[in-house]
């Protein structure tokens, strides 16, 4: 069964149709990549899945539950984890506290007015485990604001993982990373993808060919091609969309 199931999603801004009948589903233990040239409507699609925008028509199901009308925080509670294209962390929190707060969202009520949250060993242990996993264990104590760009991308992922997501929505996780950093992040994702299904929006084709089980190509809000990475690589419509640019 599909963990994420999107059916006939449509969205217009005035006369501009940014999503036209987009359907997409991702099964358990799969990594699905979403590619397309700039302005293809990838970001608007991501926004509709994550709840920033409400679609005009269509359905989004997560693990069988209809989340189309859910606000962002309920989608997260329902098991949707996401990273942002532009790093979005809590700047005045330590790296550990960023992840611990995300873990807190899934560990019972946060309407608790007594007891030191920073001293909750359960949350801190979980946060430490996740930091070890994304390779930030030695940075736990410093402020998120003081991380390098590459480290902040890893923290993004750590925050998303701390919520114990059933599904990961990764919006250009490699954006702005150097070659070494990209490979490091790809390794981490390769390790994760059999555990948590994910939808990966990415420009880095190396990462896509390594990670993705399936690829969907979006152009002008319409799905023009879909298949395994190899099938898409040879698809004329997909090639036309990219005009051959960095598509080998």
């Amino acid at each position, binding site marked *: 069964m599909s963990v994420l199931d999107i059916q006939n999603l449509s969205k217009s801004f005035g006369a501009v149709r940014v999503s036209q009948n987009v359907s997409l589903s991702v099964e358990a233990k799969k990594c699905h990549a979403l590619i397309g040239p700039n302005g293809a409507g990838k970001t608007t699609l991501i926004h509709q899945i994550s709840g920033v925008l409400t679609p005009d028509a269509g359905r989004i199901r997560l693990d069988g539950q209809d989340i189309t009308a859910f606000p962002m925080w309920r989608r997260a509670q329902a098991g949707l984890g996401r990273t942002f294209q532009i790093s979005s962390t809590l700047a005045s929190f330590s790296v550990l506290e960023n992840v611990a707060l995300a873990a807190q969202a899934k560990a019972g009520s946060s309407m608790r007015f007594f007891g030191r949250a920073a001293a909750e060993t359960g949350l801190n242990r979980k946060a430490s485990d996740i930091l070890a996993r994304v390779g930030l264990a030695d940075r736990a104590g410093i402020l998120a604001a003081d991380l390098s760009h590459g480290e902040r991308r890893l923290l993004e992922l750590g925050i998303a993982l701390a*919520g114990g997501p059933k599904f990961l929505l990764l919006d250009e996780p490699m954006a702005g990373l150097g070659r070494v950093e990209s490979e490091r992040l790809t390794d981490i994702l390769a390790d994760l993808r059999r555990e948590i299904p994910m939808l990966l929006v990415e420009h880095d084709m190396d990462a896509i060919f390594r990670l993705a089980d399936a690829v969907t190509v979006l152009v002008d809000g319409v799905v023009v091609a879909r298949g395994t990475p190899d099938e898409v690589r040879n698809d004329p419509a997909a090639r036309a969309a990219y005009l051959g640019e960095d598509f080998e």
Partner: protein
Amino acid sequence: MSARNAELLTAGVIFVLLLIAPPLLEALGLGYMTGLLMKAMLLAIAALSLDLIVGQGGMISLGHSAFVGLGAYSLAIGLESGIDNILALMVIALVVSGLFALVTGALALRTSGIYFLMITLAFGQMAYFTLTSLAGYGGDDGLTLWSLATLFGSKVVQNSGQLYFVILGVLLATWWLLHRITHARFGRVLRGARDNAERAEVMGFSVFRYRLTAYVIAGMIASIAGLLTAQQNEFVSPSLATWQHSGDLLVILVIGGIGSRNGTILGAFFIVIVQELLGAILPEWRLIYGPLLVLVVLFAKGGLNTLLTPGQGRRAA
């Protein structure tokens, strides 16, 4: 010494000083100063509650004095209606201010940032004008309280009794409560949303609920400050609820250093002392006070708290 221990130690010193101040001032022949200390402590309670919204929540409210006014009038109207137990009156104040905060807060939080400030200001002004239109309770001119609240008939909660120590006790309780809330799970979510509301939302927190809860708690605490102010002044007037009074509370926070509870208490004392001192030398002290605020904003970031605990940031927990 950790920042946390420094904070507790500073608070300890402040409260011990406040505890021994009345007999000390009496001995020095400055007994009249206890009234000023009470005024400063009451301002500190209201400002501490505002800090939960502004310092922890990152939401700038310009309508906080409305809750002070509601608390004061809860006492006045309750007394006029024959209720004189201070605990019962406090319950009334908490319910009235809590409901007002719930409704106006829910509306103000439908939008964010720049709007929040304007909407809280507008609703605060609505409360102010409503109080001035209460012709039966003095209207514009306010109302002198011929009888005061008692604690089960005891006058211990009046000026003739031990009102100073009652206010000190409430200040201590407020400090402790807000200290706990800030460091608890709830406070951490609130600070997370202050840093990055969208991120907190994507983590799975309904930012609206946490902010509204903080707004209601803050409003309720401020109403207790208002109730005790009425009890101390033996008089209520709508001027408690003016937006200028809300502005004074914000000034206290900034002078003391946003997010610092000890700084807020010192800020309240600083404001009262400056106003009294300047006021004694120069009746037109506002001519100096106004530009002073501008200069503090332009040149002295961080407030008194940075003098107390060097190295601690403007947005400390």
